[in-house]
């Protein structure tokens, strides 16, 4: 095992140990649920980081895929009474299918085109959902458009943790989400350090060589896009299960800004960058609650400033500091 992989393993195990211990040390419900939310965003961000930073795919559709997972789980539960235990992995698969459609349409094109098309597709889905006023069903609570319309979807089932764990059900949510984050991070590591990561590096640094070795950008990107969509969809489904409600607010630009900042602040293309960025931004967000007016301005400034001044992110800055320390010793 290489030094880098060994280091990854150590860091990963440490973080895992800390994460497992948290609900026993910091027992307030608020902290545990915020941590769960952090895990959810971390899953999305690690996958988006793969797509954007490793695969070089300018996708702005990540949030739409997240929403896809959330809505899929909710719809399956609401209309077909599919229990969430089944609904969550199914939502992941649905998201993979959707992502493949999007990928087939967009990925043959060059970078900027992909960005615009994915943004446009996300926008279209959003517009459709909020403008759909036809009542698909008419329950006692009122007119219900197919995808829930502006009000969203609730009452699509439960994970059953309340029955099993009573008032501590949120801890069960915590561990479930942590488990998925673990899988997502392992996936991320495998991709970055494995042959796919190497292939993408070749495509970036020496496209001619890559082509001559039969590495097709389109095929690799499509695979990466689809596989990372699975975890993104899972995250969305777990989000829905956690809050027991899903609405078009998951398409908001603010949320996109928030998550994009996590990647940039952490370090685009790195393994631990997204996690670090997610933690950093959630902490800052928590601390700045009073200034929520300026939240978006702050996010915009952070995004631009980091990309321009500290492009390697916090991970890069820390690595540089570490290197300087070692060269002095």
């Amino acid at each position, binding site marked *: 095992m290489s030094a880098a992989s060994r280091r990854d393993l150590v860091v990963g195990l440490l973080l895992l140990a800390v994460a497992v211990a948290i609900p026993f040390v910091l027992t307030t419900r608020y902290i545990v649920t915020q941590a769960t939310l952090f895990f959810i965003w971390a899953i999305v961000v690690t996958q988006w980081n793969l797509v*954007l930073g490793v695969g*070089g795919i*300018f996708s702005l559709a990540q949030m739409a895929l997240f929403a896809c997972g959330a809505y899929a789980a909710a719809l399956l539960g609401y209309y077909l009474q599919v229990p969430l235990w089944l609904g969550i992995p199914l939502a992941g698969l649905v998201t993979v299918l959707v992502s493949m459609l999007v990928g087939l*349409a*967009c990925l*043959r*094109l*060059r*970078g*900027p*085109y992909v*960005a*615009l*098309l994915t*943004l*446009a*597709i996300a*926008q*279209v889905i959003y*517009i*459709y959902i909020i*403008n*759909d006023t036809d009542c698909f069903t008419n329950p006692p609570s009122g007119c219900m458009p197919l995808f829930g319309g502006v009000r969203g979807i609730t009452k699509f089932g439960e994970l059953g943790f309340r029955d099993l764990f009573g008032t501590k059900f949120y801890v069960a949510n915590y561990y479930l989400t942590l488990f998925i984050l673990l899988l997502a991070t392992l996936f991320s590591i495998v991709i970055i350090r494995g042959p796919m990561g190497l292939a993408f590096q070749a495509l970036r640094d020496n496209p001619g060589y890559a*082509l001559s070795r039969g590495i*097709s*950008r*389109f095929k690799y990107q499509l695979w990466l896009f689809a596989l990372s969509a699975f975890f993104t969809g899972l995250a969305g489904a777990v989000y829905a299960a956690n809050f027991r409600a899903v609405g078009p607010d998951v398409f908001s*630009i603010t949320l996109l*800004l928030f998550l*994009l*900042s996590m990647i*940039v602040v952490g370090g*685009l293309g790195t393994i631990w960058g997204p996690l670090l960025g997610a933690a950093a931004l959630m902490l800052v967000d928590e601390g700045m609650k009073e200034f929520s*007016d*300026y939240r*978006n*301005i702050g*996010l*915009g*400034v*952070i*995004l*631009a*400033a980091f*990309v*321009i*001044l500290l*492009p390697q992110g916090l991970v890069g800055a820390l690595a540089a500091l570490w290197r300087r320390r070692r060269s002095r010793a």
Partner: protein
Amino acid sequence: MSDVLIQIVASGLTVGAMYAVSTIGLSLVYGSLGMLNMAHGAVLTFGGYIAYYIITTLGLSPLVGAPAAVLVGAALGLAIYVVAALPLLRTRAFETSVFIATIGIGAVLENLMLKLFGAYPLPQPLAAPGGIIVGRVHIPAQNILILVVSLALMALVAVLLQRTRIGRAVRATAQNREAAQLMGVRVGHVYALVLAMSGALAAVSGIMVSSLTTLSPTMGADPMLKAFIVCVVAGLGNIYGAVVSALLLGLLEAIAQYVVGVRFGFATLLILVIVVLIWRPYGLFGRRQVVRL
């Protein structure tokens, strides 16, 4: 039936002309810098707000308001060059980085407007009253004004690009940057000029768009997206193709809205765009900008 046709053509051309104006700026910026300016929508909106502020709040004449908005737009474009493009130009991941940076800058501008002017939609004062009757259809004077102004601006840009020395330098830089440098062109200045022009055009576009609807801080997102789609369909960097595509798209959108309703108009348009791109990944008029692997 012909009434409907006139209606569609009138609104389609107007909207198309508006798209064309802001698309030219985007296309120029991408053609010469390789940069997708995601702050374009915010600059567009800012132009509308400046006009509002000067005319409504300060009570000055539109003859002051409109040029002021244009100047502010140009200044914002220049600022984006200095803050985002210039520092990142030498880096390897320029396209991605500047894309993200302009997303951030756009968010800052948008929320600044939100803080300064509030979220409540405001009426754009720069609007012409009345209209004319064609057949049995009433065409608002504002639409005609927009069409005339757009055509005038496009002609101005064309003259600038085709017949002036600096215009030649801009086109040369877009077609081959290193060769332009070898001719003695200071490409940094060209980039600044192009971004300033793009900002000025965006501001005008913002005034026009808000005159047809209302002024709100987030109104720029939709026109920006549509302008980008026009660019993509035309082939990023192709300016004349962009103008033609903008008009076409305006008409198509009007038809689509009539046929499937406003709600699905954009969606239908998008599906058409995707089909076009699968068939012609270079865009309709583009060349070798895209690699099919």
